[in-house]
């Protein structure tokens, strides 16, 4: 004699699902929505976080920056550092550093024939920016600066609008020179760049580094050295740089972009809170519906016990019913999530909200990132918790006193 008949358990479990289709549908949808929201929201949050971090790094920050100790407080020409010496170069040219650039970066004014606008003048060596910052990716209109001696200027597209000027025309750049007097010089606009944020297009004006150094009278000095490091080497490189640049400030992007870091943490935090809410809602919803189902069938369980069904089989029958619904719900949830993520694989355009999002440094387009580990975690969390929440009702069903159960109608 067998203690448990699996085919009978399965038959009872699967048929009981149709006994109250509304309730079963609710359970199935709860699980599906739980998995869908965990996976889809997770993928979008990951995508949003990645653009946020990448943006911060691309936005002239890099992973690490070397600068004058007072530069962050007061980014003027006086707070500058010498060009990298031999010791510093040995660190910068090591394998741990992917790319680096030295820049002059001072507050200034750009004037067209019609308008003027406060901005930041950035002197770059275009070749060293290629794998480092957004400006290294080239321009939208006109041409890129050729080298650090190039006498042209690159303006953001929005800046062209504000100044009511265009590529090919001339502007004057003005700043405070090293001697405290106003330094200025005329430039031809050779190219216009696009950035994801309009603010970026207004905040930076790019010229050849050597040209700006001459205009300000600072020789070969620079404002900052920015670098991008190989994966996992950020701390090593930062330590090495601090050793060779004792008089300078060497900071990583997490310190330089605290807003990005806290945005990332807040978003991940929201996701976690949301997932906890979903899991609790699904768990309690499931437990509640199961208790209702058991309550309605109390007499039946009494009958089962009377005719000699062992408690273990009643337990398996109730759990089995949930498992069937869980598996179906999980399948549906995964399909929905993959469908949603697939549909937005080309990017979810947030431009309608972009004006608001810009304040947070988020980009206009978010690409969802789905990791296998997220799929596994979402599924495992919901399924394990849903299963756990069925164990107690099932246990209660199996422990019903047959006489009491039989007296219920």
């Amino acid at each position, binding site marked *: *004699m*067998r203690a448990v*008949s699996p*085919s*009978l358990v399965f*038959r*009872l479990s699967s*048929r*009981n699902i*149709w*006994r109250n289709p509304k309730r079963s549908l609710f359970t199935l949808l709860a699980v599906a929505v739980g998995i869908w929201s965990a996976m889809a929201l997770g993928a979008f949050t990951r995508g949003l976080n990645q653009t946020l971090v990448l943006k911060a790094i691309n936005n002239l920050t890099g992973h690490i920056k070397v600068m004058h100790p007072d530069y962050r407080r007061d980014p003027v020409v006086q707070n500058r550092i010498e060009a990298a010496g031999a010791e510093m170069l040995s660190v910068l040219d090591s394998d741990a550093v992917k790319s680096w650039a030295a820049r002059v970066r001072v507050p200034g004014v750009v004037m067209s024939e019609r308008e003027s606008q406060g901005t930041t003048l950035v002197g770059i060596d275009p070749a060293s920016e290629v794998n480092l910052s957004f400006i290294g990716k080239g321009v939208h209109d006109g041409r890129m600066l050729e080298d650090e001696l190039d006498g042209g200027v690159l303006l953001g597209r929005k800046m062209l609008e504000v100044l009511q000027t265009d590529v090919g025309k001339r502007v004057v750049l003005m700043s405070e020179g090293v001697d405290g007097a106003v330094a200025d010089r005329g430039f031809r606009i050779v190219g216009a760049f696009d950035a994801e944020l309009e603010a970026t297009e207004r905040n930076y004006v790019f010229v050849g580094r050597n040209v700006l150094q001459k205009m300000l009278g600072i020789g070969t000095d620079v404002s900052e050295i920015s670098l991008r490091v190989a994966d996992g080497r950020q701390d090593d490189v930062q330590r090495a740089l601090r050793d060779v640049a004792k008089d300078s400030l060497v900071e990583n992007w997490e310190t330089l972009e605290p807003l990005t870091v806290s945005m990332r943490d807040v978003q991940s935090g929201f996701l976690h809170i949301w997932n906890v809410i979903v899991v609790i809602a699904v768990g309690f919803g499931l437990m509640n519906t199961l208790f209702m189902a058991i309550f309605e069938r109390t*007499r*039946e369980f009494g*009958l089962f*016990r*009377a*005719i*000699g*069904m*062992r*408690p273990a*089989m009643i337990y398996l029958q109730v759990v089995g019913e949930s498992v069937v619904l869980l598996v179906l719900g999980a399948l549906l949830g995964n399909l929905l999530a993959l469908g949603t993520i697939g549909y937005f694989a080309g990017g979810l355009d947030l431009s309608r909200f972009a004006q608001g999002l810009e304040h947070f440094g988020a980009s206009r387009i978010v690409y969802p990132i789905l990791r296998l580990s997220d799929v596994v975690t979402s599924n495992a969390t919901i399924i394990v918790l849903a299963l756990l929440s069925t164990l107690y009702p099932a246990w209660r069903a199996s422990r019903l006193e*047959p*006489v009491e159960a*039989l007296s219920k*109608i």
Partner: protein
Amino acid sequence: MARVPFGAGGGLIKNLSDNSKHPTIICESVERLYQQGDVTVHALAGVSLTIECGEFVSLCGPSGSGKTTLLNCVAGLDIPTSGEVYLIGNKISSMSKTELADLRLNNVGFVFQAYNLVPVLSAQENVEFVMELQGMSKKLRGEKARSVLREVGLEGMEHRRPAELSGGQQQRVAVARAIASEPQLVLADEPTANLDSKTSASLMDIMRKMNEDHGITFVFSTHDQLVMDRARRLVRMHDGLIESDEIQS
């Protein structure tokens, strides 16, 4: 009395010589007290009763006289406050819940007043239920179920769900389920309480026939005169005690 198995092939013939030595039921001074607030209810106030193999016994008495409690104690579903119950030679008080479940599964059939059937299973599946729990092969239990359903007059209704059957038909399926696995004993608690007199009479005739043809012991409770008249032995209860116990002609 000889016990004849169902179905052409027979197949599951139990070792009856062993069990037949014992009376089917022995109750020795069985008491069952319920505490309701300050009041102690003597559902059973000291019942001694022996029922031999093959008997057809009616427990009768007014509502609240202790019939259901006695049947539950006999089946090992309820535990007497004092006294001893022996079911087919097994001392119930010394058995575990699982042992009791297995004893019931293999030796006792049940018919209750109502809601006897599993609503999601067809008539035939309901009848097969006990045999499936016993681990009988699909083919054999299918044959037996069809054969018993024919005997209770439900041929052609094998695939109906309980909701598609009348009250009388449902009780006949319940009787079929109770006897299909050829138990020693069938316990029936007011099996005809929800049926009209004509349907009750025909259900009693079926049970009587099963008793005579297959030697199954029947103990049923009732307060229906028509049902009492068909019993061979009539045990009257009142306030948890046996008032009279007589063989009817």
